[in-house]
């Protein structure tokens, strides 16, 4: 497994002189990893992602994706990216859903039959066959996210970058989207980097989580490792997922029980403890 992305201590100055420094623990993503970035509003998550995409160029520090500086070699590595922005609305640019989904491969000059088979595959998998001939402005919010995701995934990109993809989705749609991401990661080895405010996503999805506060990456590691830092999380007003909190609470009260992400397993263990003679 090789490293796909890395960010050193970078700083960026927006046109109005707002300076965002992204520093702290090292940010590094390996091939095939599923990475979740957490952090309060304004902590620099979107800024970090935009550097990874090569859309911003740091005034200081280094960004490397696929071994190069993405802002300098944008066109060389661009085909490896699939991106869903926070405002999906703004990324659906083509006049029909089909045109939008096939936008990237067409621009990369794929042959027509290849495009067609790729598009049909992703449409099938995401379950939006009935939207094919629709136009973006007649779609609901959830449907727009799905179409954007299809457009991002069509060419099986190596790296998928998603900025708050679950925002505004109902629990079922969110769940479906998570399943889909997991499936792609499994089948194509897609590396996935996403941001979210929903900490409950982490234990069921992430291989690795980063926690940012005011540009500082203050925590990094596997979900369990991150969540056991309950004090630190609370100090930045992140509440660990409830299951973790409950297990911690039981352990604090002297019950010997293991951390788990599976509620059925937890229940069984508790019941076993209660029924124990």
């Amino acid at each position, binding site marked *: 497994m090789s490293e796909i992305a890395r960010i050193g201590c970078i700083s960026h100055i927006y046109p*109005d002189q707002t300076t965002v420094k992204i520093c702290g623990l090292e940010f590094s993503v390996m091939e095939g990893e599923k990475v979740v970035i957490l952090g309060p509003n304004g902590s620099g998550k979107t800024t970090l992602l935009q550097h990874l995409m090569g859309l911003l160029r740091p005034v200081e520090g280094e960004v490397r994706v696929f071994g190069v500086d993405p802002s300098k070699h944008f066109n060389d590595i661009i085909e490896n990216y699939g991106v869903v922005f926070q405002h999906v609305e703004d990324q659906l640019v083509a006049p029909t859903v089909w045109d939008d989904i096939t936008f990237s491969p067409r621009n990369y000059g794929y042959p027509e039959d290849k495009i067609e088979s790729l598009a049909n595959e992703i449409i099938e998998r995401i379950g939006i066959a009935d939207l094919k001939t629709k136009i973006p402005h007649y779609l609901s919010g959830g449907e727009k996210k799905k179409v954007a995701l299809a457009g991002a995934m069509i060419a099986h990109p190596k790296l998928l970058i998603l900025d708050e993809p679950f925002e505004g989705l109902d629990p079922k749609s969110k769940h479906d989207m998570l399943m889909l991401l997991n499936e792609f990661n499994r089948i194509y080895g897609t590396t996935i980097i996403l941001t979210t405010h929903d900490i409950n996503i982490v234990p069921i999805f992430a291989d690795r989580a980063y926690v940012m506060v005011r540009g500082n990456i203050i925590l990094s590691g596997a979900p369990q490792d991150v969540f056991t830092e309950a004090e630190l999380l609370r100090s930045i007003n992140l509440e660990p997922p409830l299951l973790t909190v409950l297990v911690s609470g039981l352990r604090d009260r002297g019950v010997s029980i293991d951390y788990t992400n599976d509620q059925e397993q937890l229940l069984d263990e508790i019941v076993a403890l209660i029924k124990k003679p």
Partner: protein
Amino acid sequence: MSHIHLPDGVIPVFWWVVGYVLTAAMLGLAISRTNSTEARRKVPLLGIIAAVMLIGQSIPLGFIPFHLGLAVLAGIILGPWLGFMAAFISNMFLALIGHGGITVVGLNTVVVGSEVIIGYLLYNIFRRATVEHILPVILATALTLIITIAFMIGVVAIAQVNPALVLMGEDAGAIKDSVVVDSPVALSLRRFVTIIVPVAAIGIAIEAFATGLIVRFILGVRPEIVGAPARERER
């Protein structure tokens, strides 16, 4: 504000063909002037400013029978070449929703496009004279409109259309009330002047004032849009 709502079939063929020829020449020039990588980056901005012009034209300003044209603003933001293209696109769209004929798109683009270009030039001249931004915008808008309206009266006079129609042409109802009903005969020049000059003056004042208000808002928020230095945000 000056966009001709003329239907198809009333302007002599020669003139609308001339309109198209001029437009094609200007578009050709505009496209050769924008380098292609730059152009590709600017496609969204161009398309969106054209959409903004369209929206300006489809929202009535309360109960006043005027719509904003926003051509001068487009010129300031896009520059003359992309601005001309935006004028073409918004006129094409208007024709495709039945506001004005398809044959007049050429003439309309010449009119609105010259507003864009003249507005851009005047704004830059006035701006050099002062560090201020709003006054140059207002002056440039007003002066541009005076020039282009005069020009347009020329166009429509050649095309044998009553000029009254053009200046009041922003609102069909207004025309019906003020022109059609009481005037079965051609308007005399004097009557034309007494009716039209105040109307045009009001129109110009509104557009200039509104453009000034818009620019004032933009300067307060994202000054770089109108070419002013970015505002430092106090944090």
